[in-house]
């Protein structure tokens, strides 16, 4: 059915074109032979093709354009005819003899154009007559095209300032009147279109109407092009008249399109000066009109205008643009009761953008907008509308982008209240935006108060909000979010230790609410942040600690302990252990032996009680050994206790190679280069020997279980330890023992059942090369190496 319709239309169109061309042919012949009578006859017949009612606007346009081209030739002919002595007035009458109205009016407009050019009558009289006569076409489509033709042929002939048709002072007014009238009539026809034809084709008709809108809008464009339309005239006549038509036509499509048209075609400063008039029209539009987009576009234009230069800003202040816009938005929202919430938010977002551009210094305005927005959304629980939440994010992001400073947002009391209305997902998204903004602008947040506010803002990331969305939470995203928070914690800094301590307290308060999933992410940065403070205090030490007793390393360590303890509820012992060791090291730097000891104790307890996985144990024991090795504040007793424990743990690891490695690592606990106190060669040797024993055991076990020798890598590693301590001058490490070891390794490698192991070969080779290198280097160390005769 529909396909048929389209086919039929094609047929009608081609029939129309054929008829038009045929008559155009005869018309051309008449034109060539200067036969006016025939020219009129055939042109009228040609134009009769435009009387069809069967074509859609699109197809009709095609036909119209062909007729338009032909009429240009006819116009030229009329012009020649007048220069040949035919009176234009007669011609003007002659074309009106045509019996059919549509051809008659097309011809009249064509002659009218020549008439104006001849200047035999005031242009305005002719224009007025033409626009009045066109009323005869009440068929919307045909009327629109006819009037559009009139507009087309008249637009370069409008009396205007500086135009050749300029008359006395009133003529500009008449031109405006002419265009306005044509506009009004066209709009009426356009609006009427929707009521014609069967109701079931309404949708199709609306689509067709929409295709025609530019014909109507062009009039506004013409108006904007008239030089004589100055601000005064625009304000007093043009705008009120146009708006009157827009409001009175009561048509959704037209109102939306025309409002937008007005906003786009006239200059910014006109809008600014007539803001009130323009805005007053908005609440009067049909409730279904998308006023929010209209207003948003207006504000966008004004924002851009404001951005164009500082010199225009006083204009904005002068007309109180903000107050008017704010007021208008309120009224529109009131008038359109069922405006969706996203519309409301869009409006506020646009207003906000505008305000940021025009009144960047008026935080109170911004807060006011946010407040109004809160009031509007307050009826609802949470916003689930995607569009609306998107708009709220835009609304909240705008100030951040403008001020590049979260500080400003924190000053806005309504800011967090708006965030309240976001659902958990969007809230998080917004929190992310905030964090990203801080990162990007490297904003320093330096008071506990602000930190508190900030964390309140981003609480969506800090803790679980009411509803539980874990089911749909992507783990990757979650990690990403929490990493952001971690980075944020690192950004919090105050030069004042006192304040910094407060910040730490605040952060702690917030992150402790985060629950088990978040703490592993948020605790470490806070600990490190705290340790940084400790180190800073240590650095300025004496000078400050005297009078500001409240912030001492000791106190901070207390908090830190508590924070780490909070991790105990979550089985992340490795993390906690690592943190304890970090703290211990910091305490070491502060010369707080008992504190450091306590931290170690805690670490050991964790090791003993919580860490059961053998792999984790290996990692942890190496951490412990590494940290302990660097500790220098422990007294002999404490140190003995700790090292004893550490070696004990090492020996108890499950896998022999791990045991071996841990044990030889322990050797370092007894020899510190930089501390004379801790140089116990005996125990170093003891450790290494023990390691050797274990390595042997590994070898034997390999033989026993697999029938082949195990790797000699362990031996080579031990050899390296021997060389290290030998180089350091540990007297207990003798040349003989080294040579013995090398011998042992070689025999193992060349043994019958030794597997070939290129890695081990290379390892040994490079170890030997090192020895050679040291020999070649000479000096004290070289001399010692000389003794090793490989």
């Amino acid at each position: 059915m529909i396909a048929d319709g389209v086919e039929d239309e094609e047929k009608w169109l081609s029939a129309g074109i054929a008829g038009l061309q045929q008559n155009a042919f005869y018309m051309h012949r008449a034109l060539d032979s200067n036969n006016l009578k025939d020219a009129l006859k055939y042109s009228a017949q040609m134009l009769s093709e435009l009387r069809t009612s069967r074509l859609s606007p699109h197809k009709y346009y095609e036909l119209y354009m062909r007729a338009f081209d032909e009429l240009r030739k006819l116009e030229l002919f009329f012009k020649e005819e007048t220069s040949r002595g035919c009176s234009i007035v007669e011609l003007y009458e002659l074309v009106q003899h045509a019996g059919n109205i549509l051809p008659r009016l097309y011809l009249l407009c064509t002659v009218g154009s020549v008439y104006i050019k001849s200047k035999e009558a005031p242009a305005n009289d002719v224009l007025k007559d033409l626009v009045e006569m066109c009323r005869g076409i009440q068929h919307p489509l045909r009327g629109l095209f006819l009037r559009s033709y009139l507009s087309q042929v008249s637009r370069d002939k409008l009396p205007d300032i500086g135009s050749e048709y300029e008359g006395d002072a009133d003529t500009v007014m008449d031109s405006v009147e002419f265009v306005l009238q044509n506009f009004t009539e066209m709009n009426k026809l356009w609006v009427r279109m929707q009521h014609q034809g069967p109701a079931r084709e309404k949708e199709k008709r609306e689509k067709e109407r929409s295709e025609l809108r530019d014909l109507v809008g062009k009039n506004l464009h013409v108006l904007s092009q008239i030089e004589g339309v100055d601000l005064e005239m625009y304000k007093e006549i043009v705008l009120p008249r146009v708006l009157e038509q827009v409001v009175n036509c009561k048509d959704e499509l037209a109102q939306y399109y025309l409002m937008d048209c007005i906003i786009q075609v006239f200059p910014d400063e006109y809008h600014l000066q007539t803001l009130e008039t323009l805005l007053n029209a908005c609440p009067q539009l049909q409730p279904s009109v998308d006023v929010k987009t209209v207003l948003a576009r207006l504000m966008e234009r004004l924002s851009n205008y404001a951005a164009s230069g500082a010199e225009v800003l006083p204009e904005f202040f002068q007309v109180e643009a903000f107050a008017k816009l704010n007021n208008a938005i309120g009224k529109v929202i009131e008038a359109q009761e069922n405006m969706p919430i996203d519309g409301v938010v869009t409006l506020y977002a646009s207003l906000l953008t505008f305000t940021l551009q025009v009144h960047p210094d008026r935080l109170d305005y911004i807060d006011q907008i946010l407040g109004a927005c809160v009031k509007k959304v307050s009826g609802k629980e949470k916003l689930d509308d995607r569009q609306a939440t998107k708009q709220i994010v835009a609304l909240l992001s705008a100030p951040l982008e403008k001020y590049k400073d979260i500080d400003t947002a924190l000053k806005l009391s309504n800011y967090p209240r708006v965030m309240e209305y976001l659902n958990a997902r969007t809230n998080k998204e917004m929190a992310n935006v905030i964090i990203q903004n801080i990162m990007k602008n490297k904003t320093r947040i330096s008071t506990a108060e602000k930190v508190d506010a900030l964390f309140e803002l981003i609480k969506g990331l800090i803790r679980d909000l009411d509803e539980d969305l874990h089911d749909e939470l992507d783990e990757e995203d979650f990690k990403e979010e929490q990493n952001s928070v971690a980075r944020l914690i690192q950004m919090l800094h105050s030069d004042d230790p006192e304040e910094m301590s407060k910040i730490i307290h605040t952060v702690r308060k917030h992150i402790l609410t985060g629950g088990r999933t978040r703490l592993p992410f948020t605790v470490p940065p806070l600990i490190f942040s705290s340790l940084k403070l400790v180190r800073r205090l240590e650095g300025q030490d004496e000078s400050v600690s005297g009078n500001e007793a409240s912030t001492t390393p000791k106190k901070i360590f207390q908090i830190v302990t508590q924070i780490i303890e909070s991790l105990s509820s979550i089985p992340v012992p490795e993390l906690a252990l690592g943190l304890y060791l970090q703290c211990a090291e910091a305490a070491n730097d502060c010369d707080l032996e008992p504190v450091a000891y306590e931290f170690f104790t805690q670490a050991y307890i964790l090791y003993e009680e919580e860490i059961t996985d053998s792999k984790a144990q290996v990692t942890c024991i190496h951490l412990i050994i590494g940290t302990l090795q660097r500790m220098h504040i422990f007294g002999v007793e404490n140190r003995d206790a700790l090292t004893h424990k550490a070696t004990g743990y090492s020996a108890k690891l499950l896998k022999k190679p791990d045991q071996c490695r841990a044990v030889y690592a322990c050797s370092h606990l007894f020899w510190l280069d930089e501390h004379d106190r801790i140089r116990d060669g005996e125990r170093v040797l003891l450790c290494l020997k023990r390691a050797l024993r274990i390595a042997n055991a590994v070898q034997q076990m390999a033989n026993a279980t697999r029938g082949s020798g195990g790797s000699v890598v362990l031996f080579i590693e031990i050899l390296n330890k021997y060389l290290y301590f030998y180089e350091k001058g540990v007297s207990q490490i003798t040349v003989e023992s080294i040579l013995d070891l090398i011998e042992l390794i070689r025999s193992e490698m060349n043994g019958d059942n030794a597997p070939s192991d290129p890695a081990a070969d290379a390892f040994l080779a490079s170890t030997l090369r090192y020895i050679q290198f040291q020999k070649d280097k000479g000096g004290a160390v070289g001399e010692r190496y000389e003794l090793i005769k490989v």
Partner: protein
Amino acid sequence: MNYIIGAFKPACSISVTFSDGKSRKQVALKKENGQTVMVPLFQSQETISGKISVEPVSGKKVEHNGIKVELLGQIEMYFDRGNFYDFTSLVRELDVPGEIYERKTFPFEFSTVEMPYETYNGVNVRLRYVLKVTISRGYAGSIVQYQDFVVRNYSPPPSINNSIKMEVGIEDCLHIEFEYNKSKYHLKDVIIGKIYFLLVRIKIKNMDLEIRRRESTGSGSNTHVETETLAKFELMDGAPVRGESIPIRLFLSPYELTPTYRNINNKFSVKYYLNLVLVDEEDRRYFKQQEITMYRLGETSEATL
């Protein structure tokens, strides 16, 4: 054939020339046989004068019982074709009985002739003016020659010429108010007006303004009325809505109109009407007819308009 025709060929030729024939305006007149000829134009009270020359066929003499010229105003009803009713009849004797041997010219004059009616060619009736030259002969039958001329009478612009304004309608369906600027129009006039739609509940397709001529002939029970539509002028295309006002501007010059004739010699009348026709989408016609009076304005004053 030629021979036979030759036998009945009149013995002489008669020609009529008007004294101001060169300068007098000539107008087209449609003859009974459908041919159009150009004939001089007169108006009432004018003097009609000229010369009549009689030229015998060479070498023959014309014997006659007298020559006369008559000026006749005649009305011919088509149901009674050939039967002329003379409302005006003037006679001038040109020659006493005698013989004519060679071309002979007679002057004639009808001074200030009263010709109250205009030449008219209607559907059922014809009014004509003619000069009839008769050469009376006893036995051979008279020789008669006709010369047509046209009479048109001019009127001054009427002193009272009200506009026609009327509100008409069908209840709850269509109410319009129309206005024509005058009730009396001259033949080259232009009708200006407007139609204002007060109520539109039907879907109108278009609106035309027609000029209709109503010719009634006879009288009493024999009255015969013939109506012709002389002009069909489209005023509006499409369906208007309430409050629309559609302009009218109709130039009358392209149409062949005559003045309104009222009861011409009790024989016939010609009246003109403006008929406003609205056609709806189901092709139903709604119309309102208004009589207008047509008059002929003097040529000179016409030109200035």
